[in-house]
């Protein structure tokens, strides 16, 4: 029994080498047609790049690649990026230290220490709210679990390296 992925290189097979013509046996036409396609793409891209860079034709895109990190693709609004804590109008954190995010986090990367809030209408406020990004799996469960909408993952920050040690 032969495998369906195994080629049948038998004389009955039209792809068998004995049934190929002389030019096909040398693969010369195929090599030249491949070089023609590559050359056409090369000179078309070079002409477009010259129009964009030298003659400043803005409608001609300079390169088909994205010049990351100076140029980026538009991100989806649903993208989960680095967390941020939302503030109230007075600047204090909206978080009430209910520990829901710390409890639901599957990576155990959130550490909260609660304390009393000076406003008696607000029960608690986080004294410490640490996220260990080395453990975070960016599942977004903390955002879903938060009853106060105090934590969001909409900063758009994906790279945690920087160009200098000062940020």
């Amino acid at each position: 029994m032969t495998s369906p992925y195994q080629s049948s290189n038998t004389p009955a097979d039209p792809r068998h080498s004995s049934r190929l013509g002389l030019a096909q046996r040398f693969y010369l036409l195929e090599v030249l047609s491949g070089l023609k396609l590559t050359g056409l793409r090369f000179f078309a891209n070079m002409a477009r790049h010259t129009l964009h860079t030298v003659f400043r034709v803005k409608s001609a895109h300079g390169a088909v690649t994205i010049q990351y990190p100076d140029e980026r693709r538009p991100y989806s609004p649903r993208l989960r990026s680095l967390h941020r804590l939302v503030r109230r109008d007075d600047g204090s954190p909206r978080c009430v230290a209910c520990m829901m995010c710390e409890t639901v986090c599957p990576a155990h990367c959130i550490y909260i220490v609660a304390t009393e809030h000076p406003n008696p209408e607000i029960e608690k406020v986080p004294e410490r709210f640490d996220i260990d990004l080395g453990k975070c799996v960016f599942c977004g469960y903390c955002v879903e679990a938060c009853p106060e909408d105090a934590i969001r993952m909409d900063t758009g920050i994906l790279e945690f390296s920087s160009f200098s040690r000062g940020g």
Partner: protein
Amino acid sequence: MIYTKETLLALEPAGPHGVPTSPVPIPADRTMPVIRSTPS
């Protein structure tokens, strides 16, 4: 790579097309290197 409450509170939401508006924060546990001059 631990981000503290103050760091997370200082971040702003991304702009249009998801471009970040805040600089990449420095984690609290990242230590700056001590550059020592070699004795001549």
